[in-house]
């Protein structure tokens, strides 16, 4: 059990890192971008840059939260 926990901890530290909010934000931002592409069927020329803008806003939000802690 201790080894399994250590193994999972290793992958969590590797993939998610110090701040889990970044990982959650990336997933949410990509889901929003998928909505633009797949649900609203916006052209890629519009949805892709907006996807980047969503990620940029999310990253700024995460850092703002961290600064206030």
């Amino acid at each position, binding site marked *: 059990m201790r080894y399994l926990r250590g193994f999972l901890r*290793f992958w969590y*530290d*590797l993939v998610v890192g110090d*701040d889990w909010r*970044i*990982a959650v934000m990336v997933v949410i931002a990509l889901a929003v971008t998928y909505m633009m592409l797949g649900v609203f069927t916006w052209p*890629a020329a519009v949805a*892709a840059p907006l996807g980047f803008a969503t990620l*940029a806003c999310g990253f700024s939000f995460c*850092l703002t939260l961290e600064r206030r802690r």
Partner: protein
Amino acid sequence: MDSSTWALLAATFTASFVEFVEALTIVLAMGVTRSWRSALIGVAAALVALTGFTLAAGYVIRAWLPAALLQLVVGTLLLIFGLQWLRKAVLRSAGIKALHDEDEEFATQTRLAREAGEDRRLGLDWFPLVVSFKGVFLEGVEVVFIVITFGLTAGNLPLAALGATAAGVLVLIAGLLARRPLSLVPENTLKYAVGLLLATFGTYWAIEGLGIFTGSGASVHWPGDQLALLGLLAGWFLLSRLLILVSTPATEPTAEPTTGGVPS
């Protein structure tokens, strides 16, 4: 070589260089204070484990994932990785987080090695062996991950591996010549650059990969194709500078000690 090939080489070289410098510090500390033989056996064991990990991960990713899904998975992971590095770079540049210092890390590792009790098994000093193994393996997994993801997605795994190998050889030579931690390496600046590159390529590939969920299942095309990478790089750079500007405290910054955990 075109610009994206150079970017691939630069990204894998720089990311690997930073990780190898950190691994070298740990191994040097163990070798100097406890036992070079045990430390080097730990390194060799880590390299064997890393080779197995690389072969397994490379095979699984290449064999099981279609192109668009590969871009999505790899892009998302690179994005998370890159934004974590960028986050630390912004916090360090703003004076909120202490700068990474190899001399300080070396001092910490040597102190821990001196304080640790004697644990001999199979004629080897177990403490430096295990610490060297963990240090090299943890830093190495990040290198392997970056090489595999960049190499497969850019369709040039040998070049990505070449970048990492060149970085490893360079750090090894520098370490042998200096016989001390490579604290003169501008590690924090390199990490900032790597964060920007990982975030740029991660954004590009993750959004391309979202095409797997559309009707055609084909990759999404960015406007301007690969030229969009330059726009993304500029975008992440400008955003990071802006965040550093607004995050820097008005008074003299007081650096907090970094937390422990997995070396990064």
